[in-house]
């Protein structure tokens, strides 16, 4: 009996139209849990390092998280994994909404897509019936327009659709896959478009089984209420009006200008009034009590849903105000471009024009006003018209193709991928490591369990540490030692980076939303899911006995597998560096010492390659053999990862469910006190 998972993957060969239902090995679930972990295993096994992202042999894998569809609140994510053409590395994306649970109820854990369809198609999954259908009538349609057209033609409003817009069809590197209230960014929309798959429509009415149904349901009933009441979980940005945090500290334009003191009460009131005028309600994802999404209808645009920092990135890139963002998102989400790389790329193009590197010849009839320039470039970009064809590849590649000094303006990419626009003062040790070494390409996919800032007042600091049930003991010690204005120790920084990224790998295997887990701990330490209670939920859902150490080991295994994929595809230590101007005050010698120390801690060589000792201990012997064969390691390196039990330093080994509670907490107050 398979619990929580269905035990079946869909294997779709788009070239010939072959569809198979393949039963999976339960041992894979024990070792990788699911999600991006087992997807990484498939990509390691079946996509050779020489295989181009645009080759038909590249896989595009949709994985409903292991816990998606169960009663576990906020465990509804679908992971999308492939090789990205922009980075030539493993590309990991995630989206929420309703898709993952629907796929599980249709009877599938994964959809593994290979090949390329001869013409535009969509995949229709209805329980046991799976078909590839002609999508020529959907060509050029927006993502939500596509979803509704499919629901109408299949005559079922309960179908869940994940679709690409024009941007994905035109293989923009920053294209997304859009589903209902969610978007999958970071290099997956481009592959879906390359494979000429316009959409996946799924309807599932089968049962899903769990190991301890009554215990799980009753626990989740309480957990659901606890998460609802918790001020630490969900997207606080969606419900708080004060966003001085982003607007005063992050960089506007092409990650260029910091505007301290930008935020005022007058601005906040004005933006709040505007938002309330056009916002119909807040809404959430499947089986989650939080309200992270806005449902808005701006004047002259369709009603749509938005979330996260996309609420800020567009107007900050354009030096405009919030109404501009609400307006352009109505277009950008239908076209299916992300809200991170796309605004950056457009701002980059504007900078090049201002610098005379792009001229009126490249941008005929280019408007004078910033907002108009954004609309102009968005239209060019999604159609790959004129300069849009170059910009479609993102800042790194566009800069090199344009040449003429454009490379200097590419100052905010790492491993060829656009980073969040943030340029700060003194280098931050844990963040340095997270930026350098993350194989997830984006800082918000790596950070989140350990606080961003120390607590000044010692009594307050002690109180926080005492209530910090989600943290292994050593982090409480590090936090108590952390004085404002001082670096944490090397040991602390290394451990912080390791824990932060580990929790993301946990979430991405299980399908737990980071807003209730791996992203939330950093503000208040009250994430609903953490290393100590997740195993309890896993046991009730799947029957697999695990404790916090076992869970950490699975995350470590998955993480090393992704690392191995990227190493075999050419990742080098030299690539693991932030842009020169990422912090105004750098410490090159300390940075390199930190990086070497981190590599050693992770069980990697000084080149950042997992050693045979590390891989063997993780049960990835075959991966070690391949890395030796390809000359990335010799195999005799005497380095293994540092293994510290979550139950060391007196932590009792017991099955827990709870998390840190508080009467009230707002990001605004927290940041005012501690930044």
């Amino acid at each position, binding site marked *: 009996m398979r619990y929580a998972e269905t035990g079946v993957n869909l294997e779709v060969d788009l070239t010939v139209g072959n569809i198979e239902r393949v039963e999976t090995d339960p041992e894979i679930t024990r070792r990788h849990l699911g999600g991006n972990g087992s997807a990484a295993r498939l990509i390691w096994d079946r996509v050779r390092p020489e295989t181009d992202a645009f080759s038909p042999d590249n896989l595009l894998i949709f994985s409903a998280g292991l816990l998606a569809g*169960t*009663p576990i*609140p906020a465990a509804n994510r679908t992971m999308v994994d492939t090789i990205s053409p922009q980075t030539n590395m493993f590309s990991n994306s995630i989206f929420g909404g*309703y898709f993952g649970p629907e796929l599980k*109820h249709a009877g599938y854990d994964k959809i593994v897509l290979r090949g390329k369809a001869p013409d535009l198609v969509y995949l229709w999954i209805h329980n046991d019936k799976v078909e590839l259908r002609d999508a020529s009538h959907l060509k050029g349609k927006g993502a*939500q327009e596509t979803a*509704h057209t499919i629901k109408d033609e299949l005559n*079922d*409003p*309960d179908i869940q659709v994940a679709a690409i817009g024009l941007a994905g069809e035109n293989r923009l590197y920053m294209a997304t896959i859009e589903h*209902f*209230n969610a978007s999958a960014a970071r290099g997956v929309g481009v592959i879906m478009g390359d494979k000429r798959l316009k959409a996946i429509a799924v309807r*599932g*009415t*089968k*049962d*899903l*089984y769990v190991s301890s*149904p*009554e215990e*799980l*349901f009753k626990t989740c*009933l309480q957990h*659901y*209420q606890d998460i*609802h*009441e918790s001020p630490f979980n969900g997207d606080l940005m969606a419900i708080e009006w004060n966003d001085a945090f982003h607007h005063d500290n992050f960089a506007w334009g092409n990650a260029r200008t910091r505007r301290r003191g930008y935020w005022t009460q007058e601005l906040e009131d004005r933006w709040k009034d505007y938002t309330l005028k056009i916002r*119909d*309600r*807040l*809404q*959430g*994802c*499947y*089986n*989650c*009590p939080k*309200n992270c999404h806005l*449902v808005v*209808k701006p004047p002259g645009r*369709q*009603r749509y*849903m938005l979330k996260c920092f996309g609420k800020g990135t567009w107007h900050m890139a354009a030096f405009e105000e919030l109404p501009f963002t609400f307006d352009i998102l109505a277009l950008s989400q239908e076209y299916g471009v992300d809200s991170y790389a796309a605004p950056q790329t457009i701002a980059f193009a504007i900078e090049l024009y201002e610098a005379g590197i792009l001229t009126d010849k490249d941008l005929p009839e280019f408007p004078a006003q910033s907002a108009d320039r954004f609309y102009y470039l968005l239209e060019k970009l999604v159609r790959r018209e004129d300069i849009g064809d170059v910009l479609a590849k993102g800042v790194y590649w566009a800069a090199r193709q344009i040449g003429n000094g454009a490379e200097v303006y590419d100052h905010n990419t790492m491993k060829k991928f656009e980073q969040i626009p943030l340029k700060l003062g003194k280098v931050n040790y844990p963040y340095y490591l997270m930026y350098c070494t993350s194989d997830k390409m984006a800082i918000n996919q790596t950070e989140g369990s350990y606080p961003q800032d120390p607590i000044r007042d010692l009594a307050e600091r002690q109180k926080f540490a005492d209530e910090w049930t989600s943290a292994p003991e050593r982090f409480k010690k590090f936090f108590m030692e952390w004085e404002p204005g001082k670096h944490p120790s090397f040991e602390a920084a290394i451990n912080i980076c390791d824990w932060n990224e580990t929790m993301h790998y946990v979430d991405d295997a299980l399908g737990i939303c980071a807003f209730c887990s791996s992203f939330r701990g950093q503000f208040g330490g009250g994430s609903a899911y953490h290393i100590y209670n997740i195993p309890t939920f896993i046991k009730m859902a799947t029957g697999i006995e695990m404790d916090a150490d076992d869970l950490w080991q699975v995350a470590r295994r998955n993480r090393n597998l992704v690392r191995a994929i990227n190493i075999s595809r050419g990742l080098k230590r030299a690539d693991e560096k932030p842009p020169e101007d990422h912090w105004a005050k750098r410490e090159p010698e300390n940075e390199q010492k930190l990086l070497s120390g981190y590599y050693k801690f992770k069980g990697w060589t000084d080149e950042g390659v997992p050693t045979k000792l590390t891989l063997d201990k993780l049960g990835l012997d075959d991966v070690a053999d391949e890395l030796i064969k390809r000359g990335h390691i010799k195999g005799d390196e005497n380095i293994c990862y540092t293994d510290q039990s979550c139950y060391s330093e007196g932590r009792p080994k017991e099955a827990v469910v709870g998390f840190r509670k508080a009467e009230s907490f707002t990001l605004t107050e927290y940041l005012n006190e501690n930044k």
Partner: protein
Amino acid sequence: MSKPAKKIVKEIKVDLSKCNGCRACEKACAAFHAIPKYSSFNPARSRIKVVIDERNDQWVPVRASGYTAAECNGRNHYVIEGKEYSECAFCPASCPSRDWFKEPDSGLPLKCDMCEDVPPLAEPMCVQICARGCLTYSEREVEVFEEEVTRGEMEMGIAALIKKYGAEVVRNAVSRATKR
């Protein structure tokens, strides 16, 4: 002559402005009604369904009311204060025109029973799990006036039976019934 009796009327109030579309109500309902209990939490088996059309800000939880053999002649399509709801959005019937409120395997109709149980639940499961306050439960007592059947009405009933089945059949039926 009539005599008043007391009856409890149970009510689930739905505040349409509060639904966040989480559909936890569907899972809780499916879980409670599964046999064995909690063995399934499949929204397709739920007696409550959130009818969503995000293009029109429509998020309407509807509870299954019972089976109807035929579709309505005309569809119900409400516009409330300028907001247009999809047709049949408020209709709770298990109807041939749509898939809702039918067991996915057998097609048998589903109907909300207010989570009847022994001992009784404090509140139906959908209300229990709804954290947003969209669904709230209340009970009220009403007086029900029952009409006594008069002698004249009874004789009219017998006359109708005789007309339909014939006196012979009716006489035999009365005879059998009175023997018990």
